[in-house]
């Protein structure tokens, strides 16, 4: 694909099973490569998405189950800050107030509690939303820096 053409929307729908996080990573890797995103950023994006999906499985659904998780990938080309990939992760599980989802103090060394920090460190925009009738929507944007 020529690097100035627009990536059309992609949707990947899985159920809340930790095994599927790797399927999503594979699809995202291919999609991000199509817009020419630098390899290092593809790795980071995949890390952030893994954290986000893991959180949906763990907190949204309270564990592995047959409920759906939907990831939509959109290519934003009109943004004044430059081209970007938008990832919208939708679940139908527990709703929580978006402002309660935050990263913890990193100075305390203990297992866990790092997912939200990782997502916010990697993505250029992160917003949680619970406006729908059921579940949460997590919108993440990563600007595209091309491989040199």
């Amino acid at each position, binding site marked *: 694909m020529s690097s100035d053409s627009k990536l059309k929307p992609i949707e990947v729908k899985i159920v809340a*099973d*930790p095994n599927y996080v790797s399927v999503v990573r594979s699809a995202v890797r291919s999609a991000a490569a199509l817009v020419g995103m630098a390899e290092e950023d593809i*790795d980071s994006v995949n*890390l952030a998405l*893994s*954290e986000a999906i893991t959180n949906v499985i763990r907190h949204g659904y309270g564990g592995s189950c047959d409920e759906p998780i939907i990831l939509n990938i959109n290519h934003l080309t009109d943004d004044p800050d430059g081209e970007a990939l938008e990832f919208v992760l939708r679940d139908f599980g527990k709703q929580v107030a978006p402002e309660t989802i935050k990263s913890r103090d990193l100075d305390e060394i203990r*297992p866990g509690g790092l997912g939200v920090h990782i997502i916010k460190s990697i993505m250029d925009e992160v917003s949680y939303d619970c406006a729908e009738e059921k579940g949460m929507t997590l919108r993440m944007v990563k600007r595209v820096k091309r491989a040199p």
Partner: protein
Amino acid sequence: MSEADKTGVVKNIRNEQNAVVLELRGDIDMSRSSELREQILDVLQQKPAALVINMTDVAFMDSSGLATLVEAMQLSQRHGSSLRLTGLATRVRSVFEISRLDTIFEIYESESEALS
């Protein structure tokens, strides 16, 4: 899941002088971090002087893998074992850096350095 399973997180366990070397493989995420946890706890029960975790064949790790390693480090301190990491690919190392845990762990460039 048997240890012979192609998707097992432990590739190999070796006893070296005063150290156990645990070679991992594949992606370490929520689907495999509990298996990793069991395997590490198993080794730490033997209270080795050092546990060297070689991650050369780990292409991806997320915070559930990291949580397992933090727990392992805390347990190894209680057991008087030294936990050492080696073979971290850039994308694996970056998980430690983003979480500001890269200075907390003993990370070595090569397995021979980790063993010496």
